[in-house]
């Protein structure tokens, strides 16, 4: 059976070159970078420094502005809580978009509990934040604005350059979560006035368990992890040396090759989009053109998301859904079954949200795989509709000209 991985937004396969670069630091070189007097520690320290340079180069930063973390969640937590902490007691107000990741949204919980004001900015039907709305929302006590670069669920690329101009004008710290986009489309801190940028290695063919936060020199950020003096004091704890080496190598590969990947993925994405556009009652989500390469997201009426995923999986196609019923399968009870906040934010009715699918392609995918998805989907949708009472009612209504 075919094995088609169309879920790169959740994670990407490790590039074999990354694994090769990591191996010596899982075997031969096990030193602690803090013990840099001896040969073992020295080798690890040099490897971490090299990786810092490679990650910095990916986004046009200086090496000393890159702090390694355990991943995007930790980076987003550090950015949000650290920025509020660093801005002092007079500035507690945070502005975020409605479509931020849980690791930004839920980092606001302790701030709210402490009485900190939060403004959540709505997005339009394509999922775009309005920079003018950011301007209006900024107050004298605003500590932070956080807007993601690209949304993983609907693929939309946000106008972060324009938002950054507004925050810069007002002297407000600006955080950009670039987890879904970094290593895929250009993001350069010399052009985008972001003060904090979240990166995740496993989203661009690096290993899991390692990420980074870019902290612009001069930005005032409080630490969230307390201990030794690693990572310029922002992130205590012995470094994940093999992971960091892997992230550095993945960043270097992306710097050289992402342009070619994007060309390939834009072509495949277009093929997939055009191939399924004819399915009746299918609605694409996200911005039609300003979106991640190889990212195709949509919802279909009268077919539930988890059932779509199960049938796709039976055909060997692995995809994701914003469906309430599939996204929280490991939840504790029904209360955990909530339709995707992103889909609600762009105005998809909650009883219909359940039929949403995200196909996210990667550099290894082929035209043949896209053809398999294009030929499988209409039949799967038909099969589910054939047993849906809502579709039966819809057909009767249509037949009556209603």
């Amino acid at each position, binding site marked *: 059976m075919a094995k088609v991985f169309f879920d790169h937004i959740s994670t990407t396969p490790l590039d074999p070159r990354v694994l090769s670069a990591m191996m010596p630091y899982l075997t031969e070189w096990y030193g602690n970078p803090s013990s840099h007097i001896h040969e073992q520690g020295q080798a690890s320290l040099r490897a971490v420094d090299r990786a810092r340079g490679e990650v910095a180069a990916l986004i046009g930063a200086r090496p000393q502005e890159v702090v390694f973390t355990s991943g995007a969640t930790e980076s987003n937590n550090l950015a949000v809580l650290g920025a509020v902490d660093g801005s002092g007691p007079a500035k507690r107000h945070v502005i975020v978009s409605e479509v931020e990741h849980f690791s930004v949204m839920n980092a606001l919980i302790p701030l709210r509990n402490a009485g900190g004001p939060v403004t959540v900015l709505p997005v339009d039907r394509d999922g775009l934040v309005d920079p003018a709305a950011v301007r209006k929302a900024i107050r004298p006590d605003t500590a932070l604005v956080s807007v993601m670069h690209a949304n993983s669920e609907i693929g939309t690329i946000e106008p972060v350059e324009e938002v950054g101009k507004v925050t810069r004008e007002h002297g407000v710290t600006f955080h950009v979560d670039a987890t879904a986009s970094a290593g895929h489309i250009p993001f350069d801190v010399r052009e985008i006035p972001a003060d904090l940028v979240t990166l995740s290695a496993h989203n661009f063919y690096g290993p899991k368990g390692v990420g980074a936060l870019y902290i612009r020199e001069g930005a005032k950020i409080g630490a969230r992890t307390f201990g030794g003096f690693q990572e310029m004091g922002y992130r205590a704890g012995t470094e994940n040396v093999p992971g960091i080496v892997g992230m550095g190598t993945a960043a270097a590969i992306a710097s050289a090759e992402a342009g070619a990947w994007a060309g390939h993925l834009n072509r495949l994405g277009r093929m997939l989009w055009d191939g399924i556009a004819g399915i009746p009652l299918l609605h694409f989500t996200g911005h039609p053109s300003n979106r991640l390469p190889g990212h195709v997201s949509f919802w279909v009426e009268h077919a539930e998301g988890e059932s779509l995923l*199960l049938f796709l999986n039976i055909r060997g196609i692995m995809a994701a859904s914003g469906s309430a019923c599939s996204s929280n399968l490991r939840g504790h009870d029904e209360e955990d079954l909530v339709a995707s906040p992103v889909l609600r934010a762009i105005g998809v009715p909650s009883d219909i949200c359940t*039929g949403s699918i995200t196909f996210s392609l990667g550099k290894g995918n082929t035209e043949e795989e896209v053809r398999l998805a294009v030929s499988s989907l209409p039949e799967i949708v038909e099969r589910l509709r054939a*047993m849906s009472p809502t579709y039966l009612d819809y057909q009767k209504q249509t037949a009556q000209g209603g």
Partner: protein
Amino acid sequence: MAAGPYSAKVMDHFMNPRNVGEIEGADGIGEVGNPACGDMMRLYLKIEDGRVVDARFRTFGCGAAIASSSMLTEMIKGKTVEEAREITNHSVAEALDGLPAVKIHCSVMAEQAVKSALDDYGKKHPGQ
């Protein structure tokens, strides 16, 4: 084939659902649903001499919802109205070799569909 959180039996009923469709002139029709979670079930029963002789369903929902509906129609056929009323979500889930904790409500939907269809039958056939 078991898949993800589902037993082989759930997947069998999901991929090859039994008794999908409608019954013309059904003696009892039950409709239950939870639009927030996006599942909805319609159950059609044909009842002769106080016994369920045919059952059909249409369901919009996840794998567990479709499998529970399918299993329910198999379980209910041949039962008397009284016996049918005793079908619980636990018996449906058990017949499917279990459901993940967050999916138990899908089998509850099946139980409620039976009650709803039998109530409808009671209204249409008073005194039976």
